[in-house]
């Protein structure tokens, strides 16, 4: 139940979005996040988009995770 993941909105039809992360597509309701639009990154939980994710923060986080997996250092301050 307590599972949430970041994903990009690629299509919106009424209050239902199609979101994509790492090539996997899922539908997500926008009832709790009506302001989300195509191109936004959103946090998806139990079939609902819950919040728009700050893209810069997400990129920083992804870069940190990449570093932990052995990528060269790209983040020098937080």
């Amino acid at each position: 139940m307590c599972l949430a993941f970041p994903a990009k909105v690629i299509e919106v039809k009424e209050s239902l979005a199609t979101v994509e992360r790492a090539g996997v597509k899922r539908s997500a309701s926008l009832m709790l996040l009506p302001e989300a639009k195509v191109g936004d990154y959103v946090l998806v939980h139990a079939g609902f988009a819950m919040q728009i994710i700050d893209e810069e923060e997400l990129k920083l986080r992804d870069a940190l995770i990449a570093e932990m997996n052995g990528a060269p250092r790209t983040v020098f301050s937080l």
Partner: protein
Amino acid sequence: MSLIDKIKTLAQGKKNLRFMEVCGTHTVAIFRAGIRNILPPNVELVSGPGCPVCVTNDDFIDKAIEYSKLPDTIIATFGDMLKVPGSFSNLAEESAAGANVQIIYSPLDCLKIAAENPNKRVIFLAVGFETTAPTAAATIISARNADLKNLYFLSAQKLVPPALKMLLADSAVKVDGFLLPGHVAVVTGTKVFEFLKVPAVVAGFEPEEILLALINLLRQIDEGRAEVSNEYKSVVKSEGNIAAQKILAQVYETVDADWRGLGTIPKSGLKVCEEFADFDIEKILPLEIKPVKKNTACRCGEVLRGICKPTDCKLFGRTCQPLHAVGPCMISVEGVCAAWYKYGNFKFS
């Protein structure tokens, strides 16, 4: 300087510090990354009542089982609830014995189940904290809009801030700061935690985000501050998710709720309000269940308050293991005991 070196420097010379995380996903992330093993000896992480499955009481499960025995009834539930023990049985056993129990990913899946089974009554077991409750609330609104007449909710949804308030008032619980649940704060925002008056930091779920939050807690203690701080800014806004809060307020009212291990906490539960009462199975079809007093050595209640460690429980790792669990903290994949068992390898003292 690495994050862990910063933590070591800040912790140097300080008294023993206990920080509590109140989110099962944090508990698992902390164990999986081995964070407890690299912290300085005077910084201890304890787990609080952060798993909505674990804090669900026996009598909720007993009630769900009673409903599952009614004719033409489908119980829809998140998979996490299947093995949670009631007084005599659990939903997995009832399913094996013939009850119609269906596992769903999203509460919205219930709409489909109800539409496809118009002659059956579909009851969704609504558990969860502030993160999950709006998804059930939005489903109720969708069901009303779709004019579905055979979908009902049995609610044991709970609110986190009242539980923290109770923990702070409990002298047996000694906590110097909280790692606040990131995805609860996505909905609630950070202001609802300002009453805490101890250092509290909203944390993300990656190991480095948890370390950043610990640094923030230690800095607050170093500088004598006690504030609510946000280290999960990518999704947590101080005002939270207003649309989700509105839907919560539209569909639910707050009531006193029973928490496993913590007892009754005032205004800590969510029940469907009068306007949507036709979706509340307890109002439409009330069932009386007999309260059962269990004699068990299970110490989940104390584990959930951070008073004892799973390894202090006589059952842990012996009669109580993930495959034949006694208490809910071992059953839920995000339960404290399950995390200790899976990642602890009996090496924790």
